[in-house]
Structures are given as structure tokens and as C-alpha cells.
């Protein structure tokens, strides 16, 4: 998926670090703006990245996030170490959540994270090993520019 990469950047996300939650997604948005990527694609990428980053902060111990840009599109890959997801199908349902009160106080945990990521991306692949962690790959096509 990362063949012909024009740009590949790695970031580390720390679990439970609520004060820094979302900073990597903001950085990704700024990088894509500097590269002149169309705003409609930046927006979808930033929303999906933010939801994915928040999932790591809320549920996992830590994760590596890779932002990869090719002529075809943008790929964000997140591999986390954490409890993993027991039932991915259930986690994909809108409204399903295992969030704690602390997470809800942050304005998250509505059970919209994974559905939001799917809705905003062009391709999404998720796999998880309970007790070990979750891998998420999301792709945004650069040939699909929606109307602002």
C-alpha cells in the first residue's frame, strides 16, 4: 500500500494522554494544507484521523500512526497496543460504545468513531486481536474531489 510513496511520516500516539488528544490530527491537517491537497479531501482525512486518534487515546496503551501520500491518495495506518476489539461488527454499529464517564466528559464515546471513519474514508480495513491490539488502515483517493 505504501509503494511509490512521495511522503511518509510516523507519529506516536500515547494512550490516556487526554491533554494532547487530537494534536496529531491537527498536524496532519496542516501538513496536507501545506501540500495543497483539495480542502474536501483534507477535511475527510482530518475527521477520520481525529476519530482514530481519539480511539487510541481513549482505549489503547499506545500506537504508531503512519501518514503516507502517493499519487493515488492518502493512507493513514494506525497500529495500537491495547485491549483490542472483541467484536468488530458490533463496534462498527452506530451508537455502540464501551466508553467510560471520563471519555464521555471529553465529548467522545458516542459510538460514532468507527462509523465516522468509514463514512469519511474511501477504503477502510480493520483487524484486531483481543488482548493485543488493533490495526486500522484508511485510504482517501486523490481522484475523488467532492463539491465543497
Amino acid at each position, binding site marked *: 500500500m505504501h509503494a511509490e510513496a512521495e511522503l511518509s511520516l510516523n507519529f506516536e500516539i500515547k494512550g490516556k494522554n487526554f491533554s494532547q488528544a487530537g494534536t496529531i490530527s491537527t498536524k496532519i491537517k496542516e501538513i496536507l494544507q501545506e501540500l495543497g491537497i483539495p*480542502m474536501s479531501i483534507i477535511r475527510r482525512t*482530518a475527521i477520520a484521523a*481525529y476519530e482514530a486518534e481519539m480511539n487510541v487515546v481513549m482505549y489503547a496503551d499506545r500506537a504508531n500512526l503512519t501518514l503516507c501520500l502517493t499519487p493515488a491518495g492518502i493512507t493513514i495506518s494506525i497500529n495500537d497496543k491495547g485491549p483490542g476489539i472483541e467484536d468488530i461488527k458490533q463496534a462498527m454499529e452506530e451508537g455502540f460504545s464501551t466508553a467510560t464517564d471520563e471519555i464521555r466528559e471529553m465529548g*467522545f464515546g*458516542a459510538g*460514532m468513531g468507527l462509523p465516522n471513519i468509514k463514512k469519511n474514508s474511501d477504503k477502510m480495513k480493520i483487524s484486531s486481536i483481543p488482548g493485543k491490539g488493533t490495526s486500522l488502515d484508511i485510504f482517501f483517493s486523490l481522484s475523488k474531489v467532492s463539491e465543497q
Partner: protein
Amino acid sequence: MKLKEIKEILQAKIICSKNLLDIEIHFAGAADLMSDALAFGEPGLLLLTGLTNSQSIRTADIIGAKAVVYVRGKKPAKDVIEFAQSKKIPVLLTKFMMFTACGRLFSHNLPGVHEFKEKKTNAR
């Protein structure tokens, strides 16, 4: 509708980016859950919320919201205001509850996201 008219309707106080009171706002949305705002938000949104932490500003920035209104007399912490200022997002504070704040804006013909999109589609 200009942001300064919204400020009047909500009897609000603007606490940052005061130079942006002349920006035009065409629609609004309200949520305390940021995942909801991320799901329905559209660029240009006026976001009304009771959540005053930094995630409200980060969400506003990610979705391209034009301004944020904190309802129910809530005040954000200094670092949140500084973050909003750095993102050039005006922040208004109103004493009105969420329902009343939304109702006041709606009755002054400021539509919600879906009404605005429908109107735009029908006009084509």
C-alpha cells in the same frame, strides 16, 4: 447573518477573534458530543455546545466551523481560549440554555445544517 447579529440575538459576549464579528454565518448545529459534531458538521458551521474543553475547538477546526458558541453561561479555560485564538475561531458565550439559544437563532431564520443543505439543493 453576520456573527455580530448572532451575538445580539444570543445576548452573548465574544471572548476571542473579536475582529471577526463581520463574518457571515449561514447555518448552525448543536452538540455536546464531538463525534456527533464530526458526523454532521459542514464547513462554515456555527457550533453551539456546552462542552468547553479543548476538544470543542479542535473539533471546530477539523470540521471547518466558523465560530463556536458556548451555552448555559459556561466559560472555557484560558488555554482553550488561546487555542481558539490561534485557530482564528471566534468564541461567544451566552447565558441561554442550549434549547433556547438554538430556538432564538432558528426563529431569526438561521437554519440547521440539513435545512441549509436542502435549501441549497432546491435552489439549483
